[in-house]
């Protein structure tokens, strides 16, 4: 794919974002954009600030400097509720599922913002509350079918193996019908079969639902296969930004990852 094939509408743009914790600078003047409908990979060595970048987009961290422009609206920082209601969903490196609930319930929580009935109706569980519950259950079951996790829907997620938990987490993010999906190392800890499955899901989500995806990933082959464009971070700074094959050939990127040999 060439750069012209992609849509030109910019869904998210971060400009000159800097984030520091005490004396440690996690992000230093990072700028890049994400276009609607693309799969954008964010890569870099450990500690480069990739997760921090997602946390900034999400609203968990507030940058000291810089702006975030989402769907045309520029702001200094995001708030988590704002991000959620504006159609941003994400998964986490260390799995942030609700361990006390079942798979089905976890994914149902993703529908939270789509459900509106008030306390009174819910207490009685008739009429509007019941209808809403059943409608959303249908939507969630479609996701369960898509991710092929029917067998575990009533199991408490705490008891599931790691790979399945990651899938459930993806399900929860998808349940919100997001416009922008942030995936933080979705393949971490998976074997090659699981990685293939996960890659297929990611591509399907992007092509069938048109969801824009920002993806942090360490596995280079996955990055090269899946992504449309790549941005590289190292020590909080931006090293490179471009198409996958350009990044792969970029000397600085190679040095950052593999180290420089001294003669």
């Amino acid at each position, binding site marked *: 794919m060439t750069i012209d094939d992609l849509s030109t509408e910019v869904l998210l743009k971060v400009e000159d974002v800097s984030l520091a914790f005490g004396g440690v600078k996690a992000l230093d003047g990072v700028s890049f954009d994400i276009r609607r409908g693309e799969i954008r990979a964010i890569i870099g060595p450990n500690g480069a600030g990739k997760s921090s970048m997602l946390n900034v987009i*999400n609203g*968990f961290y507030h940058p000291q400097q810089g702006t975030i422009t989402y769907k045309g609206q520029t702001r200094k920082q995001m708030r*988590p*509720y704002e*991000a*959620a*209601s504006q159609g941003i*969903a*994400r998964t*986490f490196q260390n799995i*942030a*599922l*609700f*361990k*006390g*609930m079942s798979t089905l*319930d976890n994914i*149902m*929580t*993703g529908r*939270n*913002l789509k*459900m509106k*009935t008030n*306390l009174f109706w*819910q*207490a*009685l*569980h008739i009429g509007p*509350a*019941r209808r*809403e*519950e*059943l409608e959303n*259950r*249908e939507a969630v*079951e479609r996701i369960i079918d898509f991710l092929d996790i029917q067998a575990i829907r009533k199991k408490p997620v705490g008891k599931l193996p790691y790979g399945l938990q990651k899938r459930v987490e993806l399900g*929860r993010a998808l349940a*919100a019908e997001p416009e922008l999906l942030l995936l933080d190392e979705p393949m971490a800890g998976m074997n090659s079969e699981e990685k293939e499955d996960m890659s297929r899901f990611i591509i399907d989500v992007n092509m069938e639902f048109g969801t824009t995806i920002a993806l942090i990933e360490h596995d280079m082959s996955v990055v090269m296969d899946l992504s449309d464009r790549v941005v590289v971070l190292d020590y909080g700074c931006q090293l490179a930004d471009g198409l996958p094959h350009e990044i792969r050939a970029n000397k600085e990127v190679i040095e950052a990852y593999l180290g420089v040999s001294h003669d």
Partner: protein
Amino acid sequence: MIYRETGQFKDNYSDDQALFPIAQDRYVIYAVLLVTFAVVPFVLNQYWLNAVMLPFLIYALAALGLNILTGYCGQVSLGTGGFMAVGAFSVYKLMVAVPELGFVPLVILSGLITAAVGTLFGLPSLRIKGFYLAVATLAAQFFLIWMFNKVGWFFNYNATGMITSPPMTMFGVIITGPEGTPAAKYLLVASFVAVFALVAKNLARGRIGRNWMAIRDMDIAAELIGVRPLIAKLSAFAVSSFYIGMAGALYFAVWLGSAEPTEAFDINQSFLVLFMIIIGGLGSVLGSILGAAFMVLMPILLKNVLVNGFGTNSALAAHIEIMTVGALIIIFLIAEPHGLARLWRIAKEKLRLWPFPY
């Protein structure tokens, strides 16, 4: 073999989401309800109704309330006694001022008043978590008891500081105060528990319940599915205090008849209800009820065995009782931290196979 679900297929989500999808469960519930409402009031004598069933049911209501806050939403509260006092004093003032509204509406009103107070005292939960929140609720507990003790308006400037429940009737039968008919009181309280247990179940399996549990399990992640921690936590405090307030109102008006704040609603009450939900099972409606039954029945059983059975004097029996409660708490926490509700579920699992071993 008894408890098999084979052959019971659901072909729509509505059936799958029903409260008791398995037929055997339904039969048990119908049987329990039948016995509760149609059998017990005619079979049990006055002592059992008054000294055992009434406190059991009233505490079950309080335990339901606390479980909503602590078990489902994960906010630890040691202020239960204080909130029960709010319910009691509210219903007292209302009974004196507007008795014509009828007892049940007044109880519900006192629940609402307690919900408002509970929401106020729940505000710190936005900044404070875990233990620290428990200590903050202690502030509520001590402050409320002090207030009901000192501020004369609450007990109508009565010299002793006690409040006494005026007799109120329902369908021509007296249900409050010492003159009330035990059977009538029992049916009234049992109805409250049945209705509000159902409400609790409904809330738990709906959006609000899921949001509460999300806050409990990982409140940071909850934010990103669009849960506003403020609304979720305060709603938990509000609903929980509603239940606890009603329980307090019933405790005073229907069971005790008269009450003095430092005795009836002190910190030991808070601990007692907390023990009930821990032993019964956090995050479980059945657990709240089982826990209440356990903590009410056990001291009575113990006293009977010790005093009547072994002839121990009652002071010693009281000390042994305290030790036993403490020991049982520890034993439960070690053996089954998820409480009686979990034991019940395990028993049902075993019943699936019984009489086969595996």
